[in-house]
């Protein structure tokens, strides 16, 4: 089974802190994604990466950056956390050439910014 592991299920940070959310997948997938999920807004794409060191902006990249130094790892960085970034963050991966739209998600990281 594909496994996408997010390093922290729950985090509490203070406004202005730098936050790292880590995601690792074990299936050698080329593509990795970060979404945030908020009540009533569904899943919104922050960034995705189709190769090591490559990244593309999703719909809501403001306030976030990403890093993909190794194929299996995709990190989401909040340079200076703000309260409006309190959310559930979901990482996903998919193989190039796989079924269109088939993503494998991690269990999520719930971030609270105080």
């Amino acid at each position, binding site marked *: 089974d594909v496994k996408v592991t997010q390093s922290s299920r729950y985090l509490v940070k203070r406004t202005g802190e730098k936050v790292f959310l880590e995601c690792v997948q074990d299936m050698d997938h080329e593509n990795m994604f970060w979404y945030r999920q908020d009540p009533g807004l569904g*899943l919104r794409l922050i960034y995705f990466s189709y190769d090591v060191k490559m990244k*593309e902006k999703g719909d809501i990249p403001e306030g976030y950056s990403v890093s993909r130094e190794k194929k299996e790892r995709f990190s989401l960085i909040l340079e200076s956390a703000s309260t409006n970034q309190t959310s559930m963050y979901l990482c996903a991966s998919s193989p190039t050439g796989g079924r269109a739209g088939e*993503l494998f998600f*991690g*269990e999520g990281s719930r971030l609270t910014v105080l």
Partner: protein
Amino acid sequence: LAKTTQPISMDSYEGQEVNITCSHNNIATNDYITWYQQFPSQGPRFIIQGYKTKVTNEVASLFIPADRKSSTLSLPRVSLSDTAVYYCLGAQLGTYKYIFGTGTRLKVLA
């Protein structure tokens, strides 16, 4: 990219068949329709995908009419454990900017 519209929520009773419709009026010729299921405190998981007509697997059936402007996810004889949020998604092979809609929250009642 297909923009999708779904009902926000639905209630059903155990043992009933549930149909959740997704509207995707601007679907592109190369878009596949994909549905996900998300249980509380878990990430979404892929359940079914189709291009046209009908697809069935062990979890659900997916009906896509000839004009492909909508699709219907059908869950036969739901149980309490089918309570979840269901998302539809239009996606093309070789593209990776997948945009999800707001999903449909299905509540199955005893």
